[in-house]
């Protein structure tokens, strides 16, 4: 029997990444699998006010920093929410306001810097354990993230591949999602997703014992319910109206292939598990902004899921 720990959507949170790397030892897991969306959603400018003074606006609260200790503490707070601290000055802020394209460059630079740090931390923490991390960046992750992961000896980029895990189970993986209102980095139409999935499932030698690690959850699985939005991206009816937003192509693929296990993320509030036919389908959800690592421990036999539980770490 092998024990898998799966987590997803850590969105740039240093705390969640560190917890993820520690989870193997903590839960006694043999394999670590990370779903997509490793990168954060916001840069927080630390605006220099002269001397050791900085002004930081975090979550609409203004903090005035006056020394090195406070600066380090604020950096930690910002990183704990998965945001990227960026030391700047009033002149640069003015310049960025005039040319928002430059902000995208800063974003990419900060994202890649953190991903690089995470790869180094993984090497350090998992050295000598024989444990690898299998991951596939999600729809919110820039393409450049893949290049950094490819360089890692500990973190395996599983996107688009059929990976044979040490337990003998085959795993297909993809961070691509169906269309979202945000036009993110890795999204496409359902028919294209169907082709993507077919390209992987057709290479499976033992489909019924395989694992799907697909960022988006299957449509109408109960794990894909998100607040309905209006055209301005406002939740309608104060968030009371929840609608399924998962992939229909993925659902069809699961129904057809009937893998042993299907792991998902993408919808942070979609935490749960269900069955589609014989397949156990799990979305552990995400609370990355609270520094809490939601995950799932799955105990796998050769031909069946022996047991599983969702975790709150």
């Amino acid at each position, binding site marked *: 029997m092998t024990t898998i720990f799966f987590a997803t959507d850590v969105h740039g949170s240093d705390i969640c990444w*560190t917890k993820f790397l*520690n989870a193997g030892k903590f839960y006694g897991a043999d394999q670590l699998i990370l779903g997509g969306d490793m990168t954060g959603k*916001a840069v927080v400018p630390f605006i220099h006010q002269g001397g050791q003074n900085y002004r930081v606006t975090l979550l*609409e609260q203004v903090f005035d920093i006056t020394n090195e200790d406070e600066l380090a503490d604020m950096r930690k707070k910002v990183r704990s929410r998965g945001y990227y601290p960026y030391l700047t000055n009033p002149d640069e802020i003015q310049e960025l306001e005039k040319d928002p394209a430059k902000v995208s460059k800063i974003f990419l630079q900060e994202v890649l810097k953190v991903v690089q740090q995470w790869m180094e931390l993984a090497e350090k923490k998992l050295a000598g354990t024989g444990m690898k991390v299998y991951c596939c960046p999600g729809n919110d992750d820039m393409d450049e993230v893949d290049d950094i992961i490819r360089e890692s000896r500990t973190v395996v980029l599983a996107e688009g591949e059929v990976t044979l895990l040490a337990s003998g189970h085959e795993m297909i993986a993809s961070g691509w999602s169906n269309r979202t209102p945000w036009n993110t980095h890795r999204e496409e139409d359902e028919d294209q997703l169907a082709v993507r999935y077919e390209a992987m499932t057709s290479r499976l030698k033992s489909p019924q014992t395989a694992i799907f690690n697909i960022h988006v959850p299957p449509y109408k699985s109960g794990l894909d319910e998100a607040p309905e939005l209006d055209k301005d*991206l*406002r939740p309608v009816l104060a968030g009371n109206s929840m609608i399924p937003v998962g992939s229909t192509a993925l659902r069809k693929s699961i129904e057809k292939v009937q893998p042993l296990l299907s792991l998902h993320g993408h919808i942070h509030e979609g935490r749960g598990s269900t*069955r589609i036919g014989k397949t156990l389908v799990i979305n552990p959800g995400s609370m990355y902004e609270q520094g809490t690592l939601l995950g799932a421990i799955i105990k796998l036999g050769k031909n069946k899921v022996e047991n599983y539980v969702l975790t709150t*770490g």
Partner: protein
Amino acid sequence: MSDLFVRKATGMVRSWSVFDAFIYAFFSINFVTLGFYAFSQMYYFGGGMINALIISAIFLVFEIIVYSSLIAVMPRSGGDYVWQTRVFGGGLGFILSITGWWFTLWLWTPVYGDMLRQVVIVPLLGAFGMSGQAVWFAGTGTPLFVSSILALVFVSVVIMLGMKTYARIQKFSFYAGVVGLAIVIILLLTGTPEAFKAGFEANSAAYFGTQSSGLVDATAEAGIAAGAATPLTGGSLGLVMVTLPWLVFFNLWPNWGATLYGEVRGATDYKRNFAGMAWALGAVTVLGIVFFLAVSKTIGWDFYQQANGAWWNYYWGYTTEVPPLPVWPNPAMLAAFLTNNRLVQIVILVLMSFWWFGWAGTLFLSSTRVVFAAAFDRYLPEKVAELNKNGTPVNAMLLMVIPAVVVSYMYAYNVGGFISVTLAATQAIAIMYFGTSIAAIVLPYKKKDLYEASPIAKMKVAGIPLITVAGLIFGGFLLFLLVEWFFDPWLNTGGEAPGLYGISLMNTNSVVFLLATYGLAAALYYGFKSKRKSEGIDMDKVQAEIPVE
């Protein structure tokens, strides 16, 4: 945070409408179902109703601060269950939340059923000339059981329809209900006592076959005999305070849909959460005051209390003599009697029925979420969270509906005096809220990093976190309510049953109900924990924080 530095990523939504949040909070403190129902049962107190409304609202502002703050620190997390578990760890959050959000809703079922017949079925049957059926439906025993089953059928249909559809039904019901209530209040404000007396006697006779003259006097007499006494205003602070454990049956719920609110990205979103709930609380409080004054002007305050006393004295079994008005004195119906146009009366009664239909569907929606959360955490069997081919959680529904049928039967037929436990439905939820208040008080100290990186980190009163201050005040208020409910120490010094609220420790039904539900929750928690351990899963570890070093 400036939008300039936020990239387009999944889930980056804009803020929801405060007005929509207001609508759902306003409907949760449902003025016509919970309000009319609670007000009518409070006929035997010494504290003024207007004073009680205002004082309770002041305390409940702190409830709103507590919940807005927790949502800001731990948004979209699943509410009381997760907040308590995160702060306290272990089974406390599970036991309090499973009882408060699930088991206690079984007891709410016959209460919803009673409101269904009194607000909707009985007046409409009367309006359509079916007086015999109307009077039968208002009676004790089988009619209440039938009505509870009808309520369960409606709620089950809502779960099958899903929240997307029901949220729209609720919004429509809000507008229809508000129009109906506006007509009721206008009728009461423009009517006269003489017109009311004439309309009441004539229409009651037509609706329910009552005596066509002398009904007002007979009802007043029955009410006086029942001890109707509650004044409109006045009373000492102590007398007003002891009315609050009854009044909160109506207004303890501005936070009911709050855990659905989205991600809180800053102080502005925190204020939006607060505003949605606070405006709702303010609106129902003002509405209550206007309604009471309007009742006082046209129906007459004393008669309103006497009619209520006459009904509930009979309903609770203190007398076997059917009151002169053999149905619940629904204020909307009494207002409709100010016009003799039957069509207008029916329109008013139909519009007012939307207060029930737009609200009652939520009976088991929260329970479904908690049942699912418990199953996902493996404290219930996996099958409990299964959906059928249409996406309906059939097994979870059965876990709510079957016990609710049993509890409704016991309540409707008053098995062993079970009807006296009405307020226990509020009590168990208040106990859960009390746990959440304690979690709020200690959160900034027990979860320092989480709190300090949250949108409310800078909100302080005299250097003390606002969430702690609000938790102390709201928790103190809940403690007062619990002491009153359990011990009733001020006005029932002899500890005589059933006490001022019917659910003191002297009421065996209430104590047994509470112990049974908490016992069941504890048995589930420890039973499944032990089962999982035998399967090689350490549940304590599953919910423990992974070290960050």
